[in-house]
């Protein structure tokens, strides 16, 4: 019985090898079409993940990559799904590794010929695990300047996921921007302990509004609805969220993953991929983030505020102004 099992195992292994070799050969022939897979921990609607998805969709059309993805992959399944794609001969595997940092890194080690590029709060790992992150503190700072000018009660707030570095630096930049233009402003922060729980985010926002917040930064999904219900102003996050409530959303802190995806696809295609930090490609100067257009607020915002923001935007693009990166835990005032 035991011998039988062994021979069976060997046969399966042999078959697997043949498949791997065959796909490897196929890949060499069709080197033009880069095969890209993405593994997302949350459903695709979650704004953070959606920005990556949208950029990869665009790459499918404009760069001719072949793209497939899996959503809602929990930490327990993360390694399996990553391995399936790696075994399936994908050249580039992207995703968000925040919930499965160690798992993603361990899996990547087993497939040195595959490029792994993951959203991560920590650094890249040789030879093939590169990282990116939403370095959108610059537009968050600009949005803060607008909030600081718009607030009538000198109280602004942010409802965010949890006190992790990538969230902290957005909240802190938002508050710092407001304080630069209005020294009397007080910042309030709430954390809902989840990346995607809109009812809870809405309830947290309502609590802040009860406490006098009149401009609120919707770091998480669900906040804008509360702002619209109570008739205060809101700043969107991740994508241009104007259409959720046109009268309420003054601007949004937009993260555009296109420069990152384009760069990643280019280096992988050129065969010069290394385990690097692609974070810079989310900066404003690279077009990886920007404040959304004002839309309905174009006429309602005072000229003075608009020119102030435009000036600071130019300084950031020119590199003459650096938005401070503060990743300490923000505290309510």
């Amino acid at each position, binding site marked *: 019985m035991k011998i039988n099992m062994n021979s069976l195992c060997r046969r399966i292994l042999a078959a697997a090898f043949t498949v791997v070799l065959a796909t490897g050969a196929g890949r060499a022939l069709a080197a033009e079409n880069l095969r890209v897979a993405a593994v997302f921990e949350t*459903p*695709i609607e979650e704004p953070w993940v959606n920005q990556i998805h949208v950029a990869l969709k665009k790459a499918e059309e404009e760069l001719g990559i072949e793209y497939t993805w899996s959503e809602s992959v929990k930490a327990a399944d993360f390694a399996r799904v990553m391995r399936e794609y790696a075994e399936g001969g994908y050249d580039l595997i992207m995703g968000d590794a925040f919930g499965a940092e160690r798992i993603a890194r361990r899996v990547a080690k087993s497939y040195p010929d595959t490029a792994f590029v993951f959203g991560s709060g920590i650094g890249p790992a040789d030879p093939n695990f590169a990282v990116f992150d939403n370095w959108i503190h610059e537009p968050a700072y600009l949005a803060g300047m607008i909030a600081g000018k718009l607030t009538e009660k000198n109280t602004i707030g942010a409802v965010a996921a949890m006190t992790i570095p990538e969230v902290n630096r957005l909240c802190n930049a938002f508050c710092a921007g407001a304080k630069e233009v209005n020294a009397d402003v007080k910042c309030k922060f709430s954390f809902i302990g989840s990346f*995607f*729980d*809109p009812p809870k985010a*809405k309830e947290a926002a309502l609590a802040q509004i009860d406490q006098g917040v009149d401009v609120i930064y919707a770091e998480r999904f669900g906040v804008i609805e509360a702002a619209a219900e109570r008739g205060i102003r809101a700043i969107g996050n991740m994508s241009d969220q104007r259409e959720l409530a046109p009268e309420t959303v003054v601007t949004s802190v937009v993260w555009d993953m296109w420069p990152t995806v384009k760069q990643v696809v280019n280096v992988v295609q050129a065969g010069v991929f290394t385990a690097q930090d692609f974070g810079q490609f989310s900066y404003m100067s690279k077009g990886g983030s920007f404040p959304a257009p004002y839309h309905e607020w174009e006429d309602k915002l005072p000229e003075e505020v608009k020119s102030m923001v435009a000036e600071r935007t130019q300084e950031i693009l020119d590199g003459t102004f650096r938005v401070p990166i503060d990743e300490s835990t923000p505290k*309510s*005032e």
Partner: protein
Amino acid sequence: MSEILEQIFQIGFFTAMLRVATPLLLATLGEMFSERAGVLNLGIEGIMLLGAMVGFAAGYFSGSLWLGIVAAAVTGIAFGGLMGLLTVSLGLSQHVSGLGITLLCSGLAFFGYRLIFGQPSQPPHVDAFESVPLPWFSDIPFIGPILFDHVTLVYIAFLLVPFAAFLLYRTPWGLNLRTVGENLQAAASAGVSVAWKRYQALMISGALFGIAGAYFSLAQFNAFTFGVISGRGWVCIALVVLGRWDPWRCAFAALLFGAVDALQLRLQSSGIIDLPFQVFLLLPFLVTVVAMAVLARNARAPASLLVPYRKEER
């Protein structure tokens, strides 16, 4: 301390308390009915999620939010019936069947949503229920805006409490239900159909779970998203124990949880106490557990809870 009290004695705090408590109350009452008949319905979390999805989809396409609520209730009844088939007719393990239904319903909600709405980059939304201030009553100072300025489902949920108590304690139907929950043989020999009673209780619980779920996607929020229930169903299982299987105490339990949840959000953003945010978030759970240890120490679960009924078996 006075600063904390200042946070509490605000109209906003009390309205938030009622808003947070409402879906929990609906689901807790549902779970109470099924457990009173001796069936632990762990399908609660999944049925709530599916109710939120079906309710939203029906409301979105028909344009009538109330039709969405009805659709959610009907879905709940169907899966309550399925739970009955598994645990009553087939006499399977209530734990396993309930968890199975939760997994099935969560999967169905996910799959159904993708089938109907595809993968939108921004979830489609409806114009959610708006609050309906009751004329005259809502003008009473302080109390008026707290009690009489809510969406209709909030009024319905709280009116359900005396209704459930009446049904349970003052009608033959309720007496029979409680008998089934305490002693299966006695109920059967008194001519009560144990199976049918349990089916009824499970379908009532399913309907209330469905409505509670739809409250999230049609009233509390205006869209269905996958994180919309996030374990709130499991909370209700604990609230039933804290409520000692009694409608009035269940209402108290839901209000207590709602109050602490509303308070922790206000404490977080007030900056009065400097603690890691996780401590604030776990406060409602902590208070529930402590309250359960103190108030429900002598609570006795219905005697036939988890016991399957097989005719002529002792």
